[in-house]
């Protein structure tokens, strides 16, 4: 391509130079006296210069980029007519000037006529080149490789005719005629390629007819001019490149004529094509609009409007089965609800209520005739997906045979697109809802996470190891520690019923209550009353929660106050899991079975009766395991629960180890037990191992 571009820029000065050469030669031919030394140039030289000029102009046009931009055929024709069309006008003007001069100054003219003639020859060749290369764009539009090859041969042979007049006259006349005739036939064959016409709409076709007529008229003006000047006694000009010019002019005119005819006879069908195009476009519009809309109702309205427009229905109604009590049930267009209902009743009687149905002759079916409808054709198009029926679209036309299969299929596409959009909207809403829930859970989870103490109490009197893992759905496990004066430690563990953000709030509330109630009472009469005992704590907590916990919610908790200076602890259990305990002297593992009601179940003062304190003196080496129900209720593939027994067995096997190791062993066992199963509930596990009382050594 770059080579031909280069040749294009190279050809332009070459064309101009050769035209100037042609002018000089023609002038010398007409008036040899102008340059006495040179004399009359020979005929072959003149023809040669003409040939060089024609070749330069054609090559230059050939190398130009394709004039056809996209599908803008009309633009191509317009450029051609207003370019070369203007050339023709110039030609006519020059001709008129020539005539005028001839009348006014009879003596001076031949030389001027010769100049004008040469100008016109140049213009004509330019016009031919422009036209034929415009035609090339049209011929080769979506053409086959074979046609491209034929075109190249056609160009080559046309080029060859330039040499024909240079050959000595010895070439037999019949051979020349046969050759030129053959080329003309090839031109006719090529002119049959008018594929582009199919891409025009009605308006463009009319424009194309006018523009092609313009090309033919311009061609005619040139032809008339040359025919007239040929015999003008004033003109003294050499013979032109006849074969080449005639063949090119013939092809240019014939292609324009063929195109004109094809376009003209295609005009009646343009409407049909345009309607199809309109259908496709409105489908596209529908799709775009549907994607933008927010509610199913908007989608249905759009379907209804587009369908009426596209099939040009005289009346229609849309019936929508309401989803989740939405108010929209359809709409009517030029048909009364009574009429619609009557037709629907009839269809139901015939068992045609919700199937695709086309009746193009309503007057001929007894049932419809009895309804006395002003309509002749009916389409019923159900809206349904594989999942459910959404409703149906009914379209009516006054005339019989009003609908065709294409209407049916386009409506089918419309409705399936609509159903798809409706389902997409539903999915999207579900996904937004889902996202909100996820977001809420994320917040709850981070709240919960922030409520779990990050630093465990460190002392050389005991070891504590903890584990907390939230299930995907946030539950409400919690635990906390608080150092009390006099080598005492309060340990709280619990579980809020319910899930999500409410549970997380209640956890926060419970921790607030814990920290608030575990404050030293300045009015206490003795040391023991400075801090509430666990049962008192539970009663007060129950009281505090009574007002803010929703009706169906409750909290289970256990509070242990460990006095490690005296080697004992007191605890109360408010409905929370039993404490698992290893007794080092008895060398026995057992659960503390104590009574105790969950918090928030009874919301009055009688709660205190349901909660007990339990005191216990521990020995070095004792192990306490406290946990939430997420541990013992974890399930295996068979649906069995991990259970208290298995937990007890685990402690029997591990009690002599460090607290952290005991915890790890239990968790590993739990993991093995419930492998592959989803986690239903939060799991919290604390292991506390008591050591012998030791002097306070700074760590």
């Amino acid at each position, binding site marked *: 391509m770059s080579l031909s571009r280069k040749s294009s820029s190279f050809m332009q000065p070459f064309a101009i130079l050769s035209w100037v050469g042609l002018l000089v030669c023609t002038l010398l031919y007409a008036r040899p006296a102008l340059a006495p030394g040179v004399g009359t140039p020979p005929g072959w030289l003149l023809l040669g210069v003409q040939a060089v000029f024609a070749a330069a102009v054609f090559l230059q046009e050939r190398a130009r980029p394709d004039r056809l931009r996209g599908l803008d055929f009309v633009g191509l024709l317009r450029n051609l007519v207003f370019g070369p069309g203007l050339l023709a006008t110039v030609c006519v003007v020059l001709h008129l000037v020539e005539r005028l001069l001839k009348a006014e100054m009879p003596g001076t003219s031949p030389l001027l006529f010769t100049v004008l003639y040469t100008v016109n020859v140049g213009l004509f060749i330019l016009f031919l080149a422009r036209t034929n290369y415009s035609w090339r764009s049209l011929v080769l539009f979506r053409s086959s490789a074979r046609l491209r090859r034929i075109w190249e041969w056609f160009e080559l042979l046309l080029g060859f005719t330039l040499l024909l007049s240079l050959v000595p006259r010895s070439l037999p006349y019949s051979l020349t005629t046969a050759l030129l005739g053959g080329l003309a036939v090839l031109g006719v064959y090529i002119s049959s390629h008018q594929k582009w016409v199919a891409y025009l709409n009605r308006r463009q076709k009319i424009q194309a007819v006018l523009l092609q007529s313009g090309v033919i008229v311009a061609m005619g003006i040139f032809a008339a001019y040359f025919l007239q000047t040929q015999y003008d006694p004033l003109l003294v000009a050499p013979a032109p490149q006849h074969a080449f010019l005639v063949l090119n002019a013939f092809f240019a005119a014939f292609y324009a004529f063929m195109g004109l005819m094809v376009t003209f006879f295609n005009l009646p069908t343009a409407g049909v094509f345009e309607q199809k195009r309109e259908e496709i476009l409105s489908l596209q519009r529908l799709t775009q609009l549907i994607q933008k809309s927010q509610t199913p109702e908007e989608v249905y309205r759009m379907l209804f409007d587009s369908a009426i427009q596209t099939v040009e229905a005289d009346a229609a109604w849309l019936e929508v089965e309401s989803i989740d009590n939405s108010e929209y049930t359809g709409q009517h267009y030029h048909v009364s609800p009574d009429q619609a209902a009557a037709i629907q009743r009839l269809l139901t009687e015939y068992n045609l209520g919700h199937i695709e149905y086309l009746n193009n002759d309503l007057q001929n079916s007894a049932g419809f005739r009895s309804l006395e409808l002003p309509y002749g054709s009916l389409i019923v198009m159900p809206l349904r997906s594989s999942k459910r029926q959404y409703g149906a679209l009914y379209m009516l036309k006054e005339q019989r045979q009003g609908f065709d299969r294409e209407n049916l299929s386009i409506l089918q596409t419309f409705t399936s697109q609509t159903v798809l959009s409706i389902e997409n909207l539903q999915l999207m809403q579900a996904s937004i809802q889902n996202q909100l829930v996820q977001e809420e859970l994320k917040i709850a989870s981070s709240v919960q996470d922030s409520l779990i103490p990050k630093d465990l109490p460190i002392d050389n009197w005991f070891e504590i190891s903890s584990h907390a893992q939230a299930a995907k759905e946030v539950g409400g496990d919690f635990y906390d520690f608080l150092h009390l004066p006099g080598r005492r430690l309060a340990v709280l563990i619990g*579980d809020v019923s*319910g899930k999500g953000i409410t549970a997380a709030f209640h956890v926060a509330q419970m921790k607030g209550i814990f920290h608030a109630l575990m404050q030293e009472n300045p009015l206490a009469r003795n040391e023991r009353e400075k801090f509430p005992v666990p049962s008192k704590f539970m009663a007060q907590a129950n009281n505090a929660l009574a007002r803010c916990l929703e009706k169906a*919610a409750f909290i289970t908790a256990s509070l242990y106050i460990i006095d490690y200076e005296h080697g004992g602890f007191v605890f109360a259990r408010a409905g929370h899991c039993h404490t698992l305990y290893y007794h080092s002297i008895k060398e026995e593992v057992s659960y503390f079975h104590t009574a105790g009601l969950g918090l928030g*179940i009874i919301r009055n003062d009688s709660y205190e009766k349901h909660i007990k304190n339990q005191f216990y003196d521990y020995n070095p080496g004792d192990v306490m395991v406290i946990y939430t129900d997420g541990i013992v209720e974890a399930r295996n593939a068979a649906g069995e629960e991990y259970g208290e027994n298995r937990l007890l067995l685990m402690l029997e096997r591990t009690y002599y180890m460090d607290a952290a190791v005991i915890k790890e062993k239990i968790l590993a066992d739990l993991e093995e037990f419930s492998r592959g199963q989803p986690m239903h509930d939060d799991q919290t596990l604390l292991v506390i191992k008591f050591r012998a009382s030791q002097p306070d050594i700074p760590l």
Partner: protein
Amino acid sequence: MKINQHTTDHTFTLVLDGELDASSSVLLDTELNQPSILEYQKVLIDCQKLNYISSAGLGVFISHLQRFQDANVKLVFFNMQEKVHNVFEILGLDSLLTIVPSQAEATAI
């Protein structure tokens, strides 16, 4: 979860079948919320086929407890499986609710 109900002159019986978790507890709540339920002397809960109860399920019973007490309607559970009973017991509900081993005893109360 399936919940069946049948009534005699003075008793209203709910038969729970399956797992009572967060989603199925909504069904139970609807059943217990019927205003007509307070016209009976006793509400019996048949737990023979109740395999599991979550805290949400317990919450439903707890939330109706006060209402039944105020209306003088007895709430009686019977035929409870051991692991379900264990859940009631841990939470301390066994001291608060009437839980009896068999239907005969439940009717006799």
